């Protein structure tokens, strides 16, 4: 029984006690939690499964194999860094939610069946939403609600898919699924929402910039990586993913270039990085899967590092808009340097960890002959450097001096420590990729450091920088503006509400003019639905007794007639 929850337990217990304790005790406890969890993982042997019968269903709450173990370690590492980063906080809600959130992510990657996966999937949604709510602003609340809705929708789709999958005679085991069946498609979309597929990605760019500084650090590490893990397990080698991934890698960089909120830039760049992983999964060869998984691992580190550095800026200045920031290197040099390490990593400079995994994917793409996808990825790789590698540090720390320079200072030590560890890991893995490679699901003989690769990458990046420089010098580069950029979220935040309003108005007009019964029926039924259910609407009012009795008579008559038939 205990083992059913074993991988989750340390983090969960930690979350529980984090709610009860305060101060130094809590700090120690929260630090120890991920360490204990990771040590526990070390005792697991790959290949272990524990079948359990629940509600007459054969479930596997825990399945240990190389893939889940890798993600298990990764999440514990991310939780550890996140905890260090948030040690200065006193906000119980945030601390508890972040540990619980990490626990759910760990649970999800060890889930051996779709139902267990679904449970953790929904729990992820709730706990992560708490991190958005914890910002405690009106904006964050609205964004958090939208976020939660979409996440829950993903869970519902997963559940529906899982049921249909089980009904299709496949059982509930979470193995390769494929998009062949309706069930598979449902699950595919469910995973796709969490993985930030194009047009399904808006929750990410909408909510991540609204969460608390440390909340976003946690958010960027878990939800999407669970999705990547799930895609890798369920849909490895699905060709559609190659194209979806290529689109994901490309389109966000445009938005990233013009987005003003720097954490939104990072959110778009997160989607872009996910695109690389999705391409890898879609290709499905051993090298590609290894690349995708390794890139997920690295992304947690460098994206975490970038998010932490931006979080530090936000913590210190209270500002995240590129148009209002700049010149902070004067006051926050350490943060700036650490941020640049992250930027170099995400841009895949040789000797930084992004390089050792991204090149695997690109190589695999080329090996399988996806010529256009390869070009797209190259474009994306150049674009990453452009927006994440240059734009983030440039506008935050250099550019013109903003008014925040006067009051700015280095963030609390714990933040610096967390960032330093992450930066060290980025460089460490970049220099010695063998350690990471040994953890990957498939044995690999891949070596990223040959002259061709390194040279090609350096050329690409250097000339990207050159492009930035020249555009900047000739004042072609788009300025940072305080603005909102429309994205697919516009569909549900604007289009649908407006269309609904207009449709109602139009329907009303047409109804008056043409006296068309059907139109009036539609308009009035929609209006009535809204009106009747309001607190003084017909359906919500207290009724006179006579009318109640009338209903009884109506129902009696109806049933009688129906029964005679």
């Amino acid at each position, binding site marked *: 029984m205990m083992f059913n929850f074993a991988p989750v337990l340390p983090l969960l217990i930690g979350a529980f006690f984090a709610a009860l304790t305060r101060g130094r005790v809590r700090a120690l406890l929260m630090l120890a939690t991920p360490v204990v969890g990771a040590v526990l993982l070390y005792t697991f042997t790959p290949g272990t499964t524990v079948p359990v019968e629940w509600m007459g269903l054969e479930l596997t709450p825990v399945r240990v194999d190389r893939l889940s173990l890798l993600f298990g370690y990764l999440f514990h590492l991310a939780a550890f860094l996140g905890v260090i980063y948030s040690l200065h906080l006193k906000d119980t809600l945030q601390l508890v939610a972040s540990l619980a959130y990490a626990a759910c992510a760990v649970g999800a990657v060890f889930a051996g069946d779709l139902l267990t996966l679904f449970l953790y999937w929904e729990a992820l949604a709730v706990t992560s939403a708490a991190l958005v709510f914890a910002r*405690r602003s009106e904006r964050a609340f609205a964004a958090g609600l939208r976020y939660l809705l979409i996440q829950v929708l993903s869970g519902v789709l997963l559940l529906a898919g899982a049921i249909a999958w089980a009904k299709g005679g496949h059982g509930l085991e979470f193995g390769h699924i494929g998009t062949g069946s309706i069930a598979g498609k449902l699950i595919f979309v469910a995973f796709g929402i969490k993985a930030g597929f194009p047009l399904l990605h808006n929750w990410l760019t909408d909510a991540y910039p609204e969460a608390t500084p440390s909340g976003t650090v946690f958010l960027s590490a878990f939800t999407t990586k669970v999705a990547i893990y799930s895609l890798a397990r369920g849909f490895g080698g699905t060709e559609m993913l190659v194209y979806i991934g290529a689109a994901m890698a490309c389109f966000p960089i445009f938005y990233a270039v013009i987005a003003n909120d720097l954490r939104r830039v990072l959110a778009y760049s997160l989607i872009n990085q996910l695109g690389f992983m999705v391409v890898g999964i879609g290709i499905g060869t051993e090298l590609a899967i290894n690349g995708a998984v390794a890139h997920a691992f690295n992304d947690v580190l460098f994206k975490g590092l970038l998010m932490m550095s931006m979080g530090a800026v936000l913590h210190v200045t209270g500002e995240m808009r590129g148009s209002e920031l700049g010149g902070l290197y004067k006051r926050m040099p350490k943060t700036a340097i650490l941020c640049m390490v992250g930027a170099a990593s995400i841009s895949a400079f040789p000797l930084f960890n992004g390089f050792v995994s991204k090149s695997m994917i690109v190589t695999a793409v080329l090996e399988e002959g996806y010529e256009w996808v390869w070009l797209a990825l190259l474009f994306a790789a150049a674009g990453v450097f452009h927006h994440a590698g240059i734009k983030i540090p440039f506008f935050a720390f250099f550019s013109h001096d903003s008014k925040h320079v006067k009051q700015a200072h280095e963030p609390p030590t714990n933040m610096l420590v967390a960032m330093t560890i992450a930066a060290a890991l980025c460089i460490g893995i970049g220099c010695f990729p063998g350690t990471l490679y040994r953890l990957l699901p498939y044995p690999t003989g891949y070596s990223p450091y040959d002259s061709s690769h390194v040279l090609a990458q350096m050329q690409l990046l250097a000339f990207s920088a050159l492009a930035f420089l020249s555009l900047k010098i000739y004042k072609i580069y788009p300025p940072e503006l305080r603005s909102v950029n429309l994205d697919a979220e516009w569909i549900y935040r604007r289009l649908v509400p407006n269309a609904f309003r207009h449709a109602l108005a139009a329907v009303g007009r047409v109804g008056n003019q043409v006296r068309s019964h059907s139109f009036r029926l539609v308009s009035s039924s929609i209006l009535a639905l809204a009106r009747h259910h309001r*607190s003084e609407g017909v359906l919500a009012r207290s009724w006179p*007794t006579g009318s*109640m009795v009338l209903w009884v008579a109506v*129902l009696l008559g109806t049933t009688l007639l129906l029964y005679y038939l």
Partner: protein
Amino acid sequence: MSALDHLPILVVLIPLLTAVICPLFQNGRTAWKLALGAAWSSFAIACMLLHQVLNSGTVRYQLGGWEPPWGIEYRIDVLGGFVLLIVTSIAALVLSYARRSVEDEIRPGRISFFYAAFLLAFSGLAGITVTGDAFNLFVFLEISSLSSYALISAGRDRRSLNAAFQYLIMGSIGATFILIGIGFLYMMTGTLNMDDLAVRLPEVADTRTVRAGFAFLTVGFGLKLALFPLHLWLPNAYAYAPSVVTAFLAATATKVAVYALLRFLLGIFGVGFSLMSMPFDMILIGLGLAGILSASLVAVFQQNVKRMLAYSSVAQIGYIALGIGLASHTGISAAVMHLFNHALMKGALFMSLGAVAYRVGAMHISDFAGLGRRMPFTMAAIAIAGLSLIGIPGTAGFISKWFLVLGTLEQGWWPLAVLILLGSFLALIYVGRILEAAYFGTPKENSAVREAPLSMLIPIWILVIANVYFGLNTELTVGLATQATTDLFEALP
């Protein structure tokens, strides 16, 4: 006969006679102790009975020593035992919780009457679940209904009188319809014993009289269980009744009505007649669905939290009706499970609201602002029970919804499954509204609200923990519900 053989009658008789004695005590505290003792002993007996039923099949008891169909027979099968367990356990918990709430809300001179009426309602409900005689069921229905009207009218709010009056009218119509239905059945078969009825009905099932009786029973029980659109009495009755009464009735009364419906329509008429040859399944599905969506939507807009949850009860009844209407083993088991799970969550929710009423005194959603800090344990209970109401996995509510969705998919009616999920989604919104107010609202400055007393918190948390426990360990609920459904299906051709 040993004492053990008398258990079926004792489970009803103990609260019944305690109720009769209660008014003799002027001191409300004494009456409470008596009631508490009676409820807990009933609960113990119910456990023993269920154990007996599971070990050795249906338990029977002949009242007055007359064998059926001449005399009245008590008959407890798995379904009855299960519902009896729900009723007794909720009664025991609610009574344990009741003392402070009742002292707060009921006039001092009438407390012992209140407990007497409470016990009468309880024993009436318990009587319905154990009896095997159609007319006896009606008698106990009357006892429970009449005392419910009295209990509701005892609310502090003047509107409770009006609510109780409406409930009285509607309940009486329902009871009359049930009586007429039973009368028709008697006319066609000459017997009142349920088993005997079940044997003799098929011969005459094709007559219009039986069908008319069936219609009367449908509508009568529909009224009692607040099936949409016959639910109109319920929101006000629940909203203005004393907290304790709302908690008890919401958790048990409609459940017992559902039990009676199942007993009559499936146990007596048989699945084949009720759900296959009659369009009753379609009626249940249609009305159930309308109930789920409409009542949930109304709940979303409600400002009075108690009324909001009352509408949510109507929606939950919709789920149960839908489950029965599916006419499949899975569907009906889901309905039976939901009986239990809904009792758990609504019991916990309304008891927590009672605790809020005790400390804050008002039920408007704005009164909940900032209670997350002032009454952390109460609000946490509402949060967890609310999650269960939504059907979040890991809570009891999920289990029954899961089976319900499974049932619809079995029939290939996936649009129904989508609508069920839509209902859950609406539940998410209205529960979210309460939690938003409690955790994100700014509290009113002048109020010095404290956490509810321990005597209220402990019973609440027992139910809350049960919500989680039965969400994880499903052996008891699923096992019992499945077996009860199997019995219903196998009882008759």
